[in-house]
């Protein structure tokens, strides 16, 4: 119980600190929404007139920082997220996020799960058959791919599969000339458009899982209880998954929880390279245009997602591993 209270209060404190930084840091960035608007629409309207356009959507250039901060905290907690004052001027932030979030969750969330599953299975097999065929080439290849910058992999894949071979579309989340709906064409188009970005993320993220899993497996296989299981004459498959992998996977689980937390923040660069209109792309736009309302909600969501994932990982570890409970 003491553990739960301590973790929860730590969680709340971190959340408050992150949200406070989230309020102040964007406002200390050079430039302001009026200048961004001016640069964007390039007209000779006075800054006062532009400020008044922005004010009609809730921008308060003249309010003091402290009252603004208090309103901000209240608005964040109550979900009064306001309207964008950047590129999507006047569009409610809630709508922007509801529109972008499914694409990011779908693409990046699913890819993370698939990468974790595939990576672990491959790592288990490679670690179990240490020095085998798989183990001799897989880890060394993955050390390379895991360290490739994913935007670069993305551009390479576009060059190969979209520009040169013309097999797959290089941009958008679906063919924009199709009206969304549950039609086979739309769903096919969504899947087709997800192939390249998903593969990019898979190639660059799977390596990490495989390498950790393989190394953990090698350590675990040498443990006494595995030898014991062998001595008992259990089937290889049972020892591999039920004895060795089960224990070897523990460190990867907390890593997995964390990476799920990071799903929401998307992969800004992957979304940018593939013209994929998800949350990461919205964040880039918001920062470019000093769109405070959108920016602060996005950062808050990312923070909450990561913190919740960490908290869940903590609780999960304690549940899995009694030793952690003792120390906690």
């Amino acid at each position, binding site marked *: 119980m003491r553990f739960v209270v301590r973790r929860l209060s730590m969680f709340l404190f971190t959340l408050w600190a992150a949200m406070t930084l989230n309020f102040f840091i964007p406002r200390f*960035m*050079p*430039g*302001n929404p009026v*200048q*961004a*608007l*001016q*640069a*964007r*629409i*390039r*007209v*000779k*309207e*006075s*800054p006062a*007139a*532009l400020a*008044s*356009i922005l004010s*009609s959507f809730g921008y308060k250039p003249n309010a003091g920082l402290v009252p603004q901060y208090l309103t901000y905290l209240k608005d964040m907690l109550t979900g009064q997220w306001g309207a964008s004052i950047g*590129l*999507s*001027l*006047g*569009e409610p932030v809630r709508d922007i996020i509801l*529109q*972008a979030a499914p694409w990011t969750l779908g693409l990046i969330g699913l890819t993370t799960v698939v990468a974790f599953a595939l990576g672990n299975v491959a790592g288990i097999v490679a670690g179990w058959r240490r020095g085998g065929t798989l183990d001799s080439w897989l880890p060394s290849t993955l050390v390379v791919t895991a360290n490739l910058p994913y935007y670069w992999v993305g*551009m390479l894949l*576009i060059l190969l599969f*979209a*520009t040169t071979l*013309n*097999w797959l*579309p290089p*941009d*958008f*989340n679906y*063919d*924009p*000339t*199709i*009206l*969304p709906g549950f039609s*086979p*064409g739309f769903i*096919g*188009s969504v*899947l*087709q458009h997800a192939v390249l970005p998903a593969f990019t993320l898979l190639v660059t993220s799977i390596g990490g899982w495989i390498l950790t899993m393989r190394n953990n497996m090698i350590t675990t296989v040498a443990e006494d209880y595995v030898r014991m299981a062998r001595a008992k004459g259990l089937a290889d498959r049972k020892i591999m998954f039920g004895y060795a992998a089960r224990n070897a996977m523990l460190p990867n689980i907390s890593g997995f929880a964390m990476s799920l937390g990071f799903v929401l923040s998307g992969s800004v660069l992957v979304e*940018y*390279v593939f*013209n994929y*209109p998800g949350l990461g*792309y919205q964040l880039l*736009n918001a920062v*470019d*245009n*000093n769109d405070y309302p959108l920016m602060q909600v996005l950062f808050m969501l990312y923070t909450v997602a990561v913190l919740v994932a960490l908290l869940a990982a903590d609780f999960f570890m304690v549940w899995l591993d009694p030793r952690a409970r003792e120390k906690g």
Partner: protein
Amino acid sequence: MRRTKILAAGAAIGLAAAVAGCSSTKHTGASGGSNASGNAVPALSANLKAGGTVTIANETGATWNCQFNPLTTNQQEANGYLYESLLYVNPLQSTAAPTPMLATGYSWNSTDTQLTFDIRPGVKWSDGTAFSAQDVAYTFNLVKQYSSLDTFALWTAPAGGGAGLTGVTASGDKVTMTFSANASVFFYDVANMMPIVPEHIWSKVGNPTNYTDTKPVGTGPFVVSSCSADNIKYTANKTYWMPNEPHVQTIDYPAYLSNDPANNDLASGKANWGGQYIPSVNSFYVSKSTNNHIWSPPVANVSLIPNTAQGPTANLGVRQAIAYALDRAQIASIGEQGEEPAANQTGVVTPTFNAFLNSSALSSSGYASQNLTKAAAALKTAGYSPSHPLSLTVKTVTGYTDWDADLQVIKQELAGIGIDVTVLDEADNTFTSDLQNGNFQVIMYGPPAGPTPYYELHLMLDSANDQAIGTAAQGDYGRYKNSAVDAAFGQYAAATSASAQQAALEQVETYMINDVPLIPVVESVDWYQYSTADLEGWPSAADAYAQPSPWTYPDVEQVLLRLYSKSAQ
């Protein structure tokens, strides 16, 4: 629900190729039609059958918000498609008569302080309601009432840099506008840039500043058929006033978040109208199909703006040295890969504004080509030399890769005479803030274009725009102060004849040469790529009837009215 194109994911592989078309159609060049004038309906290609789709691939940087308020920040997707202005003024042919649109004609009084428009009869809004002169007067008075909508400062007094509009009234088929001073230089904004909105709708929407206009009603040739964050689909307005127009029935305008995907879709033929920089455009785009064409008319300058109020560039010798030392042709061919032409020291964009160029002043100035001897001499008068070099920081904006390349060439050229250039790439916001606040030694910048050189030079040089360093200025970023130049701008604005305007501009050109308040490097162009696989009627060098980029409004309407599908004929 629209029938989807793709039945099996695999079948889609051929999609792009199918759209690209394999027909070896020859490029017929300019289509018929010239700029009409007077009271006639513009003489566009008659007897053409309807059909065809325009797909625009133009980086918009954001997903669509499906709002179409033409008076705030949705101009790009509303003006020209859905809403129209009174006349169309072609910035590429500044001496040609305006094309009549919602107005059939106009007249000024002798002092250019009163402007009367004849409003076209028989026009209907897309909801069927009749359009009238009342709507025009309503629109202008609406932006008076809500000053934040007055994008062109029409109702601001001349002393504040505005047009000095004092009243707009409608009577019968006429709309009369009165100004407190000669307002001829604001004709472009009044007649060409102001979209007219329907009174019967806008009078009921409350504050028009945050009116989202998701169900737009306009007089334009297209209506919104569907809109999502990814794509706007426009279809032809069946009640459009111009007979037999538009020929093209559908426009797809997908939201491209960055250049690369838009460029890929242009190259593959998925899209047929582009408007952004394509690196190595010949191998990447033009060579992919005989139907792919480009044309990029220059419209403004990209200049190095020296800070004339403080630092080393306040010294005329330093500015002259830079201007002499630049080999602009080399910058254009290396930095811009020849896709933007070299600029010249008069600040007049050629060939677009050739009529205003004082070419004898340019050739006698010594700035017509690189002159390292004069550059070294000028630098010496300022107290610098290769043994006592000058260090300069040039600021530019991140992401404009062609400007970065230009600056690398500039850096080498200036190193030759003993100026050590450091290039500083700044994020958008920082860049704008530094530009406006005068926080730079030299900064690279390309201002928006206008229908004559006056608009750019006035913005960049008139000290009425001036502010102290550290305070944001809305022009004259280099803090250049010269009352003679200010007076020349005044003469241009008050001129009632073309020759008087010409004389005033030539004075400004002389000061550009003598004082070097700006150092034009290359000319910024309207990026424009088009495919003639199915569509004809595109603007081209031979028939420059409008600014050709899909993001130039209201020019986009002129292009849309002339396009027609070859397969539909």
